[in-house]
């Protein structure tokens, strides 16, 4: 994946800092593992690993399409509600005696439809993804509440709950982790080895230039948001299966963790760079961190503070480092400030004027 980003950004030196960011992650991860091991003798056991990874799988699965969306310069805040809607709808359909396979297909289709709504408003309507998905964050959750109300449905067949709760026979690897790995490999190939991936990077770097180069910006974005809706629905189904309970308030607050994982994985919040392997690494790092905090009997409140700080730091550190680096280079070369010393978010403001009419 370094090959792709290198060829795309020879000047910015962003690849090198990205590589260093990933090294930093590995070092942090090793540190956490040592720390965890010191905290509890059970930390390095296979059973504990299965537990710590299983608890984060819905987040991890939703982080994969989110990675592509953030690389394309957008964001999807609605994933947690899309997952909640999927859970509520699945519960409602099961309650209404719809066979489970058909119910799952319907739920996945509704997820993709929700993503289509996001995508059309953002790509065709030229609206900022932040506000559109904030709106659908409320809308999908509201629909979930309307569909299922305040009740919980929990009489699912064992064959279904085994998917979220069970392990691959003979191992301690949970099934959701297998689903995550398969999705990660597929999306990594698409992003780093195909023209679709190159188009996504091009859109994130400069969507106007991408359009004039023949990239179908709107179509790619609609596709990305549909994928995000579909996979959020899948995450909702897995969550329902793992907890063997369908609820309208399922997955509440999960978007924060999803975005944290993506940005911690070295994806640039302003779009244009980032990689799936980085995000996979971040998933493992966050899982290990949460597990270590739990073993150290740190309360849930403090964990939420830690997660918020992690999110902010994973943007502050790379941006500050980048700015410091370009300032040093400027002083050394005695050159005027380069255009990229202005953060790209301030340069490239999405406005209706830029959109095709």
């Amino acid at each position: 994946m370094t090959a792709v980003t290198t060829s795309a950004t020879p000047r910015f030196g962003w690849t090198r800092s990205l590589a260093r960011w990933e090294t930093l992650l590995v070092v942090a991860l090793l540190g956490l593992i040592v720390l965890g091991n010191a905290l509890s003798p059970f930390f390095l056991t296979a059973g504990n690993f299965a537990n710590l990874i299983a608890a984060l799988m819905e987040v991890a699965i939703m982080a994969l399409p989110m990675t592509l969306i953030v690389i394309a310069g957008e964001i999807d805040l609605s994933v947690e509600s899309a997952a909640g809607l999927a859970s509520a709808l699945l519960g409602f359909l099961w309650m209404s005696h719809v066979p489970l396979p058909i119910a799952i297909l319907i739920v996945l289709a509704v997820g993709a439809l929700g993503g289509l709504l996001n995508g059309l408003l953002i790509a065709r309507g030229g609206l900022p993804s932040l506000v559109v998905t904030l709106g659908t964050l409320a809308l999908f959750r509201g629909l979930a509440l309307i569909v299922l109300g305040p009740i919980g449905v929990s009489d699912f067949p064992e064959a279904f709950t085994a998917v979220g709760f069970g392990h691959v026979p003979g191992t301690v690897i949970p099934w959701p982790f297998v689903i995550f790995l398969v999705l990660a490999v597929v999306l990594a190939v698409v992003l780093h080895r195909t023209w679709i991936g190159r188009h996504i990077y091009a859109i994130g770097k400069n969507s106007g230039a991408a359009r004039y180069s023949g990239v179908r910006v709107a179509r790619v974005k609609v596709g990305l948001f549909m994928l995000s809706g579909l996979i959020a629905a899948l995450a909702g189904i897995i969550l329902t299966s793992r907890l063997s309970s369908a609820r309208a308030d399922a997955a509440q607050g999960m978007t924060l963790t999803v975005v944290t994982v993506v940005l911690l994985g070295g994806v640039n919040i302003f779009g244009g760079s980032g990689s799936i392997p980085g995000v996979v690494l971040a998933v493992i790092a966050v899982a290990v961190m949460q597990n270590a905090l739990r073993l150290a009997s740190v309360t849930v409140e403090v964990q939420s503070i830690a997660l918020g700080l992690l999110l902010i730091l994973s943007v502050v550190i790379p941006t500050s480092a980048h700015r410091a680096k370009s300032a040093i280079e400027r002083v050394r070369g005695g050159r005027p400030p380069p255009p990229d010393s202005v953060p790209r978010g301030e340069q490239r403001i999405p406005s209706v004027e830029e959109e095709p009419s």
Partner: protein
Amino acid sequence: MTAATRSGQRLGAIARQRELGLLVILVVLGAAVTLRAPQFLTIANLSQVSVLASVTAVAALGEALVILTRNVDLSVEATIGIVAYVVAVTLESHTFSAPVAILFGIGLGLLLGIVNGVLVAFLRVPSIVATLGTLSVFRGIDYFIAGSHQVPLAGLPEGFTDPARSDVFGVPVFVLVTVILVAIGTVILRSTRFGRQVYAVGSNPEAAAILGIPSRRVVFTAFAACGALAGLAGVMWVMEFGTINGTAATGAVLAIVAAAVVGGVNIFGGSGTLAGAALGALFLGFVANALPLIGLSQFYLQAIYGAVILAAVAADALILRRLQRSRTRRSGR
């Protein structure tokens, strides 16, 4: 007259129409609901609606200011929650007298707003990421200090919650506070240098920077003011609800953003008024109050907030696009 000022005036005119339109919708909606449920149009119910809406409105004023600068603050609900709990618990333990507690609450809100302002304006973290992070951090701190403790209504000093229930010449105190804040804010936005800078930064950050407008200071000030107003909303929350625990105002951010957006504060920045944001809050309060009266469950509320945000944003985009098309046509391009 240049094209820019002309289009600015046209945008202003459209914004004013938006407020008028919202008023018309409010009246029509009120009439329709009254036909089905006559108890809607009673002084008692209307004043209850407007008092409740005032809490959202005060927070929405700050949110509107932030949105005017092309940013967003998702952490307001956590600020409201943490201020509400801290104010209630310091009153319960008699640490502060009522006036000191109120000032302390607003000051705490200001401090949290400053944290956001530093992150966004000076550390250049995009507002969405910064405030999503501080939402989690502030709420975590709130849970941490509150634990499972709950301040009951009886724990508050006698008369502290009276402002939520009293009125001046028939106008509820909360509504009066909101109107005064809207008036002050409108004067600041219209007639001071800072106000013009807010609109300039929001409508075209690059042009504003070239003109030498200190955009970072403007954005910082907007976030700080938003925090202080959220602090005030937190104090009002205590007066309104009396019983406070660590979960106060959870999920309120959607109503607050929806109020600002439906009130005509353009999400692309640079246009909108505080009066619009306050009217937006009143509109959402009406809807929330009318739902059970016409036999719909409260579960519809969240979906309605979402639909309202989407509709308002889509309307803004349509207006902007049409405006730009007519501008290019007139200038002969």
